[in-house]
């Protein structure tokens, strides 16, 4: 939540006037939040970094449409969502490529059943499954299940209705469940 409405109005005005220092200030204030969202959405550091860069780069133009109905942070996430398609594909390609390399190396010892390793394995499997979802379902899942946002908030970010978000989330969960089971069955 923006603590000071006047400060937000001032920085929005300066962004709209094209002040580079305003963009740097907004970046410093919101980059960690946007990066965390982008990383959760894309499950790839490099793609996330690119998406963060693109979203902030688009902000000076996009902010002309900002009406203050959401926070600036939420507005940034909306911009990122509008621009994420290309980055989702890039992240998926990188993941496939790295998995091909990993399959080439056969582990000499059984993997350590450490919890952190198990988490890491689960995360990789879910990232793989997310790559196989339609983009809209992936976005709904990341916003609602990973980020734990409300349906209303997710709908506002994406620019659709709450009902649409719930439908996409439901379909995403069903498909992901099946993909995870298949993935596990394949490894057995």
């Amino acid at each position: 939540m923006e603590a000071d409405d006047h400060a937000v109005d001032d920085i929005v005005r300066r962004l709209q006037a094209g002040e580079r220092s305003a963009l740097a200030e907004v970046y410093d204030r919101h980059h960690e939040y946007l990066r965390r969202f982008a990383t959760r959405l894309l499950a790839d550091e490099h793609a996330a970094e690119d998406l963060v860069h693109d979203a902030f780069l688009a902000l000076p133009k996009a902010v002309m449409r900002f009406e203050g109905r959401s926070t600036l942070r939420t507005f940034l996430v909306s911009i990122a969502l509008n621009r994420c398609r290309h980055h989702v594909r890039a992240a998926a390609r990188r993941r496939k490529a790295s998995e091909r390399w990993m399959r080439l190396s056969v582990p000499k010892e059984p993997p350590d059943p450490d919890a952190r390793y198990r988490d890491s394995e689960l995360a990789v499997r879910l990232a793989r499954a997310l790559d196989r979802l339609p983009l809209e379902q992936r976005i709904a899942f990341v916003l609602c299940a990973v980020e734990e946002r409300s349906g209303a908030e997710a709908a506002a970010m994406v620019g659709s209705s709450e009902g649409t978000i719930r439908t996409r989330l439901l379909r995403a969960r069903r498909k992901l469940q099946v993909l995870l089971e298949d993935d596990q069955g394949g490894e057995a």
Partner: protein
Amino acid sequence: MSDLDRATEAFRAVQDRRRGDAAHTRDRLLASVVRDRRRQRGMFAAAVVLALVLTNSTTWALSTGRVSEAADELAAWLDAPSSAEPTVAPRARPAPAPSRRAAFPTPASAPERSTARPNAPPNERPNAPPPERAAAPAGSARAAPPAPSRPTPPDQGTEPPLADDLAVALADLEGRASPSEDDRERGAFATAHAVHFGDDGAARSLAAWDAYLARFPHGRFEPEARFNRAVCLLRLGRDDAARRALTPFAEGAYAGIRRRDAARLLEALSNGRLNR
């Protein structure tokens, strides 16, 4: 907890552990902004200059058959065939309305050595030999231009400076409340360019380029301004000053911009082959 819920928690934890590279992305972002703005400004400045040139010089140029002012001017100096063939046939046009000109003072230190009328093009000055053109391939020789018809310049001192007007117009177009330094530079250059290629006379052109360079000695358009200034000096017969102005270009001082043109002019100056 379902497998999916466990996977979701694990996914969140793993992604949140990733650090990213905030500092590098910040630098990259700000560099991208600068690069994008420069590209926009370059395109915009080119459009403004082109609009001015078309408004001021092409009307006269079309009416007199001289379209490629810069190439023709250089060729006229060097007795060489024009490097740019007229692409539009001269046709009768109504006399253009007087255009607004900047009230540039004629520099006191620049005596007019030429005996020409102030606004005469180089090859129409009285007492000057007719241009001797080298043998040129068929179809590339120029016909002698007909007597120019020029708009009568308005009274100097009653018109607001064109450069400032342009700066305001540029600021308006880009949504700024007042002109930025960059707007002022673009306005000053476009004005000098229009004076120079609108053939307002060498003295007025020189004053216009001096005005631009006084305000923006190392501006974005410095090389072009200095070269055009050198051409004005040649037209005014100030050979030593012209030589000093052209030598850096011939030596490649401006990343090779106008190097060949400057070398040709200097050689013609040395050999007494300049057509004045």
